[in-house]
């Protein structure tokens, strides 16, 4: 008897039923099979389907279609840029699995459109926010010439499972079985996928073909290594500087402007630093990493009043450095220099950006901005009716922020991703040069933070 392994979909798993039982012997030891005596077979993560198929060869007998073909013929009218073509070729060479890294504004969506056109399979696109849900829906319909009824979204109260479906990470993690219908999985902002709550999305998806898109796949927790398994290895990367040189994104300058604390700010800053260091010295502690800080300061602050005082001193010192009054004056000067240009201002602290907005009568978007106001401001900024917009971290990613030619980073964290994302907001091709100003308070901890965010992961 020719050995055969029947492969079914059962719940969130694959069920492998070998005939005879030895037929499974072809599978590698690390295939992660779990015996299910109730169903008389072996369970495996759908993620592993390609490996299982490869190992079993003709013995694999599928009882579902993991590669459903699109019921319409896509037509891509827009010619790809050379690097987009290269990205697609690299991804195809890797067997249709992998992560493409391109800066914001470089046309990652079009790479996905080309991949869908090449495979012509049912495709699901994972996105982190509701804004991107609508954005991707429009991009797929337009980019592939797809009839409206072929494109659906799941999330934000919608539940349309269509041959081309855009779904939020949140919805997908709640309903992973929805992902059994698709041959291609596209993960936008793929750096989210390794998060504990989202890994199961990639594990439960049957899709043999997977494409991750990100400008900044690296995660501070090192979780990006998991992308190799969940989506495939990084197959293509272009840095902003490279694309700027070839003119596919706007040429840009980064300028770091140093400002000083006022005397009163300096005194308060010094006092807070002394309190913080005093705690470390009194307790004989050394904080070298973020993990040290969390363990030795943050967690201890719950029950140790001195640790709490140190924590508050650390927060206050940081707030003073990041929100130095002279930064606001510098912003005003920069706005005057770029009067009439489209300017985005980013801040780490909402209070600073709100103060700036109040002082200069600027539109501001922070987490507490009412949705209708947020929509109106973004629309008017996009239409050119507003030329300056200030925001906190809420617009860092996942929101279709209109392009600008000037970015002012009032303050920011030490993460490279945030920096790249903010830079990306001014990189769409345009006449003239884009410029990013970074305001840094000298003789504080801020210059070190600013340097850290410019370093590639692994250097710091």
């Amino acid at each position: 008897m020719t050995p055969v392994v029947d492969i079914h979909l059962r719940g969130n798993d694959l069920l492998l039923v070998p005939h005879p039982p030895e037929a499974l012997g072809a599978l590698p030891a690390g295939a992660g099979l779990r015996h299910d005596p109730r169903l008389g077979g072996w369970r495996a993560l759908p993620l592993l389907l390609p490996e299982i198929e490869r190992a079993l060869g003709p013995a694999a007998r599928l009882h579902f279609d993991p590669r459903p073909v699109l019921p319409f013929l896509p037509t891509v009218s827009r010619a790809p840029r050379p690097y987009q073509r290269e990205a697609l070729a690299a991804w195809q060479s890797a067997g249709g699995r992998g992560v493409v890294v391109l800066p914001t504004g470089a046309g990652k969506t079009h790479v996905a459109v080309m991949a869908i056109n090449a495979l012509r399979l049912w495709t699901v696109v994972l996105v982190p926010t509701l804004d991107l849900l609508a954005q991707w829906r429009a991009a797929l319909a337009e980019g592939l010439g797809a009839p409206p009824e072929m494109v659906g979204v799941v999330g934000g109260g919608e539940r349309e499972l269509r041959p081309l479906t855009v779904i939020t990470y949140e919805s997908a993690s709640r309903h992973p079985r929805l992902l059994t219908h698709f041959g291609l999985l596209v993960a936008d902002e793929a750096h989210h996928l390794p998060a504990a709550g989202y890994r199961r999305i990639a594990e439960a998806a049957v899709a043999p073909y997977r494409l991750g898109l990100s400008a900044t796949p690296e995660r501070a927790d090192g979780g990006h290594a998991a992308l190799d398994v969940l989506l495939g290895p990084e197959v293509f990367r272009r840095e902003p500087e490279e694309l700027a040189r070839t003119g596919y994104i706007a040429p840009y300058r980064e300028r770091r402007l140093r400002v000083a604390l006022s005397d009163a700010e300096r005194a308060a800053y010094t006092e807070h630093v002394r309190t913080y260091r005093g705690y470390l010295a009194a307790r004989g502690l050394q904080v070298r990493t973020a993990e040290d800080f969390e363990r030795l300061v943050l967690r201890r602050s719950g029950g140790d009043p001195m640790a709490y005082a140190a924590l508050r001193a650390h927060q206050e010192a940081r707030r003073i450095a990041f929100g130095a009054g002279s930064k606001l004056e510098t912003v005003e000067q920069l706005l005057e220099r770029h009067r009439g240009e489209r300017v985005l201002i980013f801040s780490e602290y909402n209070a600073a950006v709100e103060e700036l907005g109040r002082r200069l009568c600027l539109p501001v978007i922070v987490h507490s901005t009412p949705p209708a106001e947020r929509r109106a401001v973004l629309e008017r900024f996009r239409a050119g009716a507003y030329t300056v917009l200030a925001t906190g971290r809420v617009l860092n990613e996942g929101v279709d922020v209109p392009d600008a030619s000037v970015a002012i980073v009032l303050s920011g964290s030490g993460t490279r991703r945030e920096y790249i994302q903010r830079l990306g907001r001014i990189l769409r091709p345009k006449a003239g040069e884009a410029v990013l100003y970074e305001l840094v308070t000298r003789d504080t901890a801020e210059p070190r933070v600013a340097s850290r965010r410019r370093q590639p992961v692994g250097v710091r």
Partner: protein
Amino acid sequence: MATLSMADIRWRARRDPGGGPPIFSVMFLTEHDRRATAAAAGVRDYLAGLAGRRRAEYDPDVVVAIAGERRLGHGLAAGCFDFYAWTARTLAEELGEERARHLTDAGIDTPSGLRLRLFDQVNQHDGGYVPSGRRDEALARLARSLGLAGEDGPALDAALRLDAEEEALLAPPETAPSVVEVLARYNRAALATVLRQSERIVFTLHQPAGGTIRRLYAWCRRLGVYADIERAGLETDVLRLTLAGPDAVSAAPASTGPRLALVALRLLRALGTHDTAAAHLHVNERPYRLLLTRVLLDVPGLALTARDRDIDSPAYDSQVEEALAAAFAALQRQGRAAGWRLVREPAPLLAGRRVIIPDFALDRGGLRVYLEIAGFWTPGYLAKKRAALAQLPADTRLIIAVPDGSLPAFADLPFPLVAYREAMAPQPVLDAAARFDALAARTAGGAERLRAACAASAGWLALRELGPLLGCYTDGEVAQALAAAPPPPGWQDIPGAGLCSTALRNRLSTALSVHWQEAGEGARLTLAGVRALGVSPLPETDEALLALLATLPACRLAHESLFEPAVLPRESAVSEPADRLQRPVEVAATPPPRSRPRRTTARAPALF
């Protein structure tokens, strides 16, 4: 409910002597803890002193200083904020009615609208921003554009940020909370926060009553907590009820902790002496076990409150079930339930180690048919439910009611399906249930029982007596049964009324004839008059009596009134020879085609 983060919870862990994950315990606050009660009073009094003040004036460091540590301070403040609330002022409150009316006339009724108007003006006139030295001018221009005076600019400045968090005012409760109330709110929030970290909560129940399990299960589902029940082993009565953690709860993340806490506390109340419960947690990426015991119920805030108890005894776990039960009760009141009785909380069914608690059972004459309602579930839950149902033996008397769109998912199961859209009608369910209760089997032997009953009867067997005799539950079934097994000789079927002996018919005919001979042919009889003739037994109901009279050749019924027909001699009948009247009426071997008696003023009674 107050919300806390894990960093605000006081907890500790100890080694599990059994070698499992460390045992996690929350340090709940009680009125015997002097430090906690003093801190609670201090925090409450601090907030009371801030009543009517801006949020910007609230200093969390003060709270920490009062409590002596951050966790306790933040936790107690969260407990207090269940009573004190930040509220935003309106434009009218800030600007006064007159100025606010100007804004309304300009189409502005929120600070957000006012801001957008300012931004529009600044972008039209100032190139996107206003240099800080010219800010007052911009505000004065805004005021003038709204029909106010330029001097109103500063007032508008305040109105522009009226909805900012720090501008909200602290509204106190009507009565300040007691210290114990504050501790209670903290404790409940702490338990909810900890349970929000749980992967699962497992209750091990020794020999629980089926009804108890059913109620607990319904309760979990009502609160949107996914629950699974299985036997601990194939040869044991120990059941394991597992509540899935927040990942599987179909609700906003913020509400999952309170829901899990509520369900867990409710389940704790039902624990027997030997029962155990534990939540499996992950805190700071390390696994822990939180043992849940009835001792928790003595902690302030963890005994269920009156508000909790409102949902403590859920009538039904979904509107679909509630509507079905109501519709079924109406059917029963109308006597159209065909003998079925709707039972909630039937005994659980076993499917391997899985335990399935159907939503309802339908009982009739010793037969039980289960009804499982597949609600509008998440695909994951639907799949689990389907897999569990597939484990049941194929001969289980089970009906599955399924939302229209989910029919295909259940189509291959060996149980009848009843589709529904939003509400479920009971009749299709009853029709499906009747398929498990074949008429032929029920009526077997009915002819013998009928013969014996006729022999023992004085001449009249009402329809309601015939049903049980023949094993029938509806008029239609009685008709079918009588068609298959006709009444014994000397008895006639009076359709829709009962069986009448020839002797009784003759006695009634004779009595009527005698009455008319004596009273004259024009004399009308009411039904009461007929009953007064002294013939016995007559049908108990007027409808049945009318049906019987309608079959007598001696009389006719005249419907001259809306209320009751008159009984008159049939003209031809009174001239019939007396011997004809006295001769027994032959009953045909094959009954005549059945037709329901003409409806009079009232509807013919149903069987039950």
